[in-house]
């Protein structure tokens, strides 16, 4: 097959769904107009552990407009069959309104259904629940950890004992909440035993399978629709209990039900990045070459599920360390279960490793960039596999030059700008390249336009745009002639939009599908005696601007429209997909070098990021304009993680005390200076057919430690805790 010229891919297009989004016409979950829908509001638990002893719903039920109050006392028994598909962690997931047990603060205990949203909200405030409360444990230090995973190579303890330089540090990372701007919400509607859900999700198939499992109905009886997702950052990767509540209420009511969580409820019931305590020991020689690393991370999980995230990969593969030991523990607490948040595992681990590297550099008097270059491995020491691509050295070299790193005075507290102590810091970012099975369908219409679809999601990165670009090039059409559709379980299956795998997986599936469709058209033409292309070898035909033509003789050819019209065809269509190989003989990761400059007010301890630059080795960049936005967004997320974000729990009763956007601080516009992202040109065809390595996670990893290291350089104060607050610097 002759390769198609790549015109759309790599060009800085504006978002194809931009007009919908700037005019308010993009319909997010609870924006959908479902006729006859009534409103539901969840009542949540005001204790963290114990049982419900009574629920008085009479006041709520007699409130005008309240239609029904559902609690564990009147809810039907639900099936909750096992479901391996929907990202449920190991354990026993919460079953809504099935018993009187309270496992965490904010757990749903009732739902009020009413004719209007005002009435439902008021009704929810009238439900009087009494409890028998027990003392919850919500502090990471409150219970011993349970070993989850171990890893070892070499003899780490011996290597540490004989190391010329040693470091032994304990890090503490606050719990963070995803806090997408769109609260989770669902509209549920039954037609007999068929359920339709308009939901906020990064994984329509996950919601479909979970809803089917909860209600004990066939998977194909559930349709999930999710064309727009107002951010998620991981929170919508599994199906949380409110989805089942909406569907249950709709079934009980016999009409569609709309349920949106409040911002406050978002802190209790849709996951979070777990709190970490992380002991890290390193050993190195005097030249800064690492000889040993011992990792002992501990994070929180719930009393009913064991959360897993990729905490250990970085410590095994990032640097050339012969001796590594890792012990990962979880602490089971009376809290809701965590869920992957942007750069899961990697973001947390990278803070610890990269701050420790900075300390090592400082101790040895080696430049922090140079220290990292001295520890570049030639292969992945955890598997022995070669890297598919690893251009971290180039990231650092380009970044150092563009950032002006060479002008840096290595001495901490050496630069001042008025009241501000100024410092710069650097860190490595890294995230693994994942791929999963994905399918797509493409249809070329007689008018010369195409519709391509896959049950993918677009929570912000720009799936609509990037897939359109891939499809346009593979079909030889202009971007405006291709429409990509997503977010509906009636479409061919796609993996979750998580772990940065969507572009590699669905992008490769779209390319395969559109290649097949193009080839079908080419075969039709070369076999058609009336076609100017009759008799030409299919391999010699390319399609450019909707015209099939001989590669070396562009004058000989015809358009899709002519071809289909002459053959009396309304359309051509094709199914395709991508299945990653069972084993890939490469270690596949994206990399970045992150540079940050901060100012710290010498008297107030206030930290302000003054500028940042990140350089990425992320493979091929399909959509440069959107990729740039994603990178800047990752940096801003990292600034939040480094300096602001901190979910605070009152351990006396397990309540989150700052469960709102005024007290849980996220970056605002005035916190953010000019930021710059550079993607190294290149691609990685060993990773996947379209050569991408994934962006969404990578762009956040390494940001927090770069800032922490800049804070040290500015002030001479080393902080091992996130977020870095003014208190820590005074």
């Amino acid at each position, binding site marked *: 097959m002759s390769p198609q010229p790549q015109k759309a891919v790599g060009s800085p297009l504006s978002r194809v769904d931009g007009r919908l989004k700037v005019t308010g016409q993009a319909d*997010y979950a609870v924006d959908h107009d479902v006729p006859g829908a009534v409103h539901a509001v969840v009542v949540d638990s005001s204790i963290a552990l114990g049982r419900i002893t009574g629920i008085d719903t009479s006041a709520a039920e007699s409130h*005008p407009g309240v239609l029904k109050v559902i609690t564990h006392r009147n809810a039907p028994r639900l099936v909750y069959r096992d479901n391996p598909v929907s990202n449920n962690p190991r354990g026993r997931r919460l079953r809504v309104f099935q018993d009187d047990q309270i496992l965490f603060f904010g757990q749903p205990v009732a739902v009020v259904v009413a*004719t209007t949203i*005002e009435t439902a909200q008021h009704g929810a405030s009238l439900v009087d629940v009494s409890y028998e409360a027990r003392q919850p444990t919500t502090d990471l230090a409150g219970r011993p950890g349970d070993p989850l995973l171990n890893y070892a190579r070499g003899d780490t303890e011996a290597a540490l004992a004989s190391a010329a330089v040693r470091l032994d540090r304990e890090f503490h990372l606050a719990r963070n909440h995803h806090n997408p*701007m769109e609260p989770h919400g669902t509209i549920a509607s039954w037609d007999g035993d068929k359920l339709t859900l308009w939901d906020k999700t990064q994984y329509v198939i996950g919601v479909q399978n979970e809803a089917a499992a909860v209600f004990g109905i066939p998977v194909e009886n559930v349709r999930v629709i999710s064309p727009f997702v107002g951010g998620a950052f991981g929170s919508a990767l599994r199906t949380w209990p409110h989805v089942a509540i909406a569907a249950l209420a709709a079934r009980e009511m016999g009409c569609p039900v709309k349920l949106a969580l409040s911002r406050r409820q978002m802190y209790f019931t849709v996951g979070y990045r777990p709190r970490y305590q992380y002991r890290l020991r390193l050993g190195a020689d005097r030249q800064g070459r690492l000889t040993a690393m011992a990792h002992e991370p501990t994070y929180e999980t719930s009393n009913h599920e064991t959360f897993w995230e990729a905490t250990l990969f970085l410590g095994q593969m990032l640097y050339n360390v012969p001796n590594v030991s890792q012990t990962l523990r979880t602490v089971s607490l009376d809290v809701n279960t965590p869920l992957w948040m942007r750069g899961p595992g990697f973001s947390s681990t990278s803070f610890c490793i990269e701050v420790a590297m900075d300390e090592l550099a400082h101790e040895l008097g080696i430049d922090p960039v140079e220290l990292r270059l001295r520890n570049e491995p030639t292969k992945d020491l955890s598997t022995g596999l070669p890297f598919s691509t690893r251009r971290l050295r180039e990231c650092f070299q380009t970044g150092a030059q563009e950032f002006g790193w060479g002008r840096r005075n290595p001495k901490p507290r050496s630069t001042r700008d008025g009241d501000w102590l100024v410092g710069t810091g650097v860190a490595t970012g890294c995230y693994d390249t994942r791929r999963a099975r994905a399918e797509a369908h493409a249809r070329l219409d007689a008018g010369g336009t195409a519709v391509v679809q896959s049950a993918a999601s677009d929570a912000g990165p720009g799936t609509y745009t990037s897939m359109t670009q891939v499809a346009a090039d593979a079909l030889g059409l202009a971007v405006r002639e291709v429409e990509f559709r997503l977010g509906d379980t009636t479409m061919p299956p796609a993996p979750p939009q998580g772990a940065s795998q969507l572009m590699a997986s669905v992008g490769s599936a779209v390319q395969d599908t559109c290649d097949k469709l193009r080839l079908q058209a080419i075969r039709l033409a070369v076999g058609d005696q009336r076609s100017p292309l009759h008799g030409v070898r299919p391999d010699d035909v390319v399609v450019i601007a909707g015209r099939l033509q001989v590669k070396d003789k562009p004058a000989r050819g015809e358009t899709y429209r002519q071809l289909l019209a002459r053959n009396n065809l309304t359309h051509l269509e094709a199914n395709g997909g991508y299945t990653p190989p069972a084993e890939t003989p490469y270690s596949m990761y994206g990399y970045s070098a992150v540079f940050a400059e901060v100012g710290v007010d010498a008297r107030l301890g206030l930290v302000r990021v003054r500028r940042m630059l990140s350089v990425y080795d992320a493979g091929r960049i399909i959509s440069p304009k959107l990729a740039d936005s994603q990178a800047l967004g990752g940096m801003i997320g990292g600034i939040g993680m480094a300096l602001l974000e901190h979910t605070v729990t009152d351990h006396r009763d397990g309540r989150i005390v700052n469960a709102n956007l005024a007290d849980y601080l996220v970056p605002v516009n*005035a916190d953010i200076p000019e930021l710059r992202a550079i993607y190294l040109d290149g691609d990685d065809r060993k990773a996947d057919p379209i050569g991408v390595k994934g962006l969404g996670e990578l762009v956040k990893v390494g940001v927090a430690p770069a800032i922490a290291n800049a804070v040290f350089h500015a002030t001479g104060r080393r902080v091992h805790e996130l977020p870095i607050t003014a208190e820590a610097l005074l």
Partner: protein
Amino acid sequence: MSTEPPAGESTGLTRRTFVATTVAVGGVVAAGELTAGASAFAAAPATAEPVPSTRVSVTVNGRQLTVTVDNRTSLLDLLREHLGLTGSKKGCNAGACGACTVLVDGRRVNGCLTLAVRLESAEVTTIEGVANGDRLHPLQQAFIDRDAFQCGYCTPGQIMSGLGCLREGHTGSAEEIREWMSGNLCRCGCYVKIVRAVEQAARWK
């Protein structure tokens, strides 16, 4: 700004608007232009006490409406749940995120913190009323040109806030824009580009 002439009470309303507004009073208060007719939801308790409600005349995107609203209704819920204008978003319902920003008499307000009953004679502009037919407002176009959004959920509020910022003349520098656009959170992290978009629109003015 929409130039659509006032529709003269209820005549310009869609069926959805009509029904939703009827539902707004639970089928109990049955007086007034928009509440005549049967309850949209038959299961509403017939014996219930009437919910305190008020008739309000308000202009939304150039269309004059008289609605009977439950006194608890926020401007945001009036728009979203009763008038079918879902472009304004609910991010926190507590005035902390700005996703519900709309213009009331030309000034930016948080729709979630504004009770609908206090809108008598007010003129409300929402994201749906910003473009002139198919022609986008320069700020909308600037948001697309500068890629000033990702998920798009905060975007209507950002644009309405940006319009306020432009009108107020707080666009003298990037720093000034940052400050005056800080009531609108963007979790995808598009701030750098939001500032560029407002700058672009300010230059166009």
